[in-house]
């Protein structure tokens, strides 16, 4: 019994760390631009398909397949910002409808270009199972969790130590004040949106080391990321890790002890409760 609990908690922890990386891009976009990106799950799915295509055409390993996808996603993000979002700044409802339109286009694109069959890849160079006593975790998940931690630290350092990152935080705190301090807010927003989309490619590539992509993958990652961002509090990179771990462990315990198909229930219940009782998030700023 204890073994089952330990196994469940450990795999929940690892999953949580992976979810943290998935939610990171959304957190940057929401934190900096106050933009409700309803297409986040779709962008994750699109990046997973990109990984699949890149690996199957070039024979690269999944773990490095994000390298060509990353600049493409960054550019797409900048273009979407200048082409669409810039024109609707300050009207959040229009932006929501806009992002849902983008989401529909992506879903459709994935179906047309990739078909409806699930796309899986052969194992990457990281494979096998790590055994600690009676616990077993696949190396690819452990590797993904480690990458997630490293990426979160890099993004955190970028936001708090570099000039561009600090400008992003300033623009998120007070747009007008940042503007008056000589920060080009439009450019910062474009960069933040590009960065948020580019950050999706890395988790997607690592997810493809042990998962398959299909046209409904977006369902799994969209609302999940929003739950993590809500728990973490507005744009807090450091809050993402504990929030994602809570989500991961809650999900894993419910899958083990209640029912596998109820896996999303604890997440959304937690999410709704946190929004009601602590709208600033569990780890948000006061």
């Amino acid at each position, binding site marked *: 019994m204890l073994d089952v609990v330990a196994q469940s908690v450990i795999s929940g922890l690892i999953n949580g760390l992976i979810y943290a990386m998935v939610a990171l891009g959304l957190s940057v976009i929401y934190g900096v631009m106050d933009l409700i990106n309803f297409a986040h799950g779709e962008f994750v799915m699109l990046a997973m398909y990109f990984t699949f295509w890149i690996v199957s055409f070039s024979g690269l390993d999944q773990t490095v397949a994000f390298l060509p996808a990353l600049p493409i996603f960054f550019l797409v993000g900048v273009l979407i910002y200048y082409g669409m979002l810039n024109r609707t700044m300050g009207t959040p409802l229009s932006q929501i409808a806009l992002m849902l339109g983008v989401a529909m286009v992506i879903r459709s694109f994935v179906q047309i270009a990739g078909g409806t069959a699930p796309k899986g890849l052969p194992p990457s160079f990281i494979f096998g199972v790590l055994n600690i006593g009676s616990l077993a975790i696949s190396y690819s998940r452990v590797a993904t969790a480690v990458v997630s931690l490293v990426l979160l630290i890099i993004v955190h350092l970028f936001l708090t130590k570099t000039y561009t990152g600090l400008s992003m935080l300033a623009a998120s705190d007070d747009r007008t004040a940042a503007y008056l301090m000589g920060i080009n807010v439009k450019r910062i927003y474009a960069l933040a949106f590009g960065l948020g989309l580019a950050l999706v490619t890395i988790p997607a590539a690592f997810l493809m080391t042990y998962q398959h992509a299909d046209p409904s993958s977006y369902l799994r990652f969209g609302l999940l990321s929003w739950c993590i961002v809500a728990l973490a509090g507005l744009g807090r990179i450091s809050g993402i890790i504990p929030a994602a771990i809570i989500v991961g462990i809650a999900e894993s315990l419910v899958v083990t002890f209640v029912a596998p198909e*109820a896996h999303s229930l604890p997440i*959304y219940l937690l999410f709704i409760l946190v929004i*009601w009782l602590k709208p600033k998030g569990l780890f948000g700023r006061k």
Partner: protein
Amino acid sequence: MKPRQFVPAFIVFVLIIALIPVFVGFNEYFILLATVVLIYGVITTAWNVMGGIAGQLDLGATAYLGIGAYVAGNMLIWWNITPWIGMFVGAIIAAGFASAIGYVMFRYGVKEIWYALSTLGLVEVLRVIFMLWKEVGGPLEKYLPRSKTDPFYYMSFGSYIPYFYIALIFLLITFLVNYRLRYSKIGYSMLALGSNEDAAESLGIDTRRTKLKGLFIYSFIVGAFGGFYACFCSFIHPNTDFNMNFALEIAVLGIVGGLGTYYGPLLAASILVSLKEYLRAVFGTIVLGIYPAIFGLAIILIILFKPEGLSSILKNVYIKLRKGGGTKHGRQQHS
């Protein structure tokens, strides 16, 4: 449109829609399409009370629709009670549920994006609960009993024409509620709330009460419609009734139609859902999955080039017509 001009326009509008089955030559397929458009129209128009007039982005339309569908459906399956009664029971339960949730949410000041996300989460929570709750839901479709001898009692008709007219009656009621509300005291409170909540509160509007009233009306209509929806589908299933994408589509149609009007959402639903169904019929078999892309593009283009919504086009046409007619109201601009 001003109240005094509303009645003739409304009668013309009702007649045109009511004659659709005649125009399409009683072709069952086209009547089915028209019914689907009406279904979207009803839910979007009801959504407009909360989302458009009161300005609260509600993404939980299918939570209330699903509750209504499940209550009416299960009453029919378990106790053989006609959906005409089940509809009202479903509406009361849906509205009670929505008010209970809404009371807590508005009490804790959940608003804007967090209100949107928690209502969306609600849909998914209910879907999973009904998926696990085997007695009333479960992962298998539960088919509603049908009867050839008494189709009216079971609301199981062999043709789509009765469904079309029931949906049309729903639409008329919803539309009239919207219209009455839009020009009532509570409607003006809602409009004020929608444009600036703090300002509305400082003017003495009880925002929590106003929001709750809006939510009650909206969820009651959608809950009642859920009973019809279950009979129209002839089965109940968590993925059909508690559908997150359906709820999102409703909100998008409402936004694209133009917020704060009573006819915008209906306009958007009739144009865009017809477009979607047309694309599905024409391209569905040629290129799999292309119609959502065109639908999505249409939404993007409308938001970019008509940010105030489709209703603004109609409004401009109306104002031009009035000017051309040279009546005494010609120069007034009103919504």
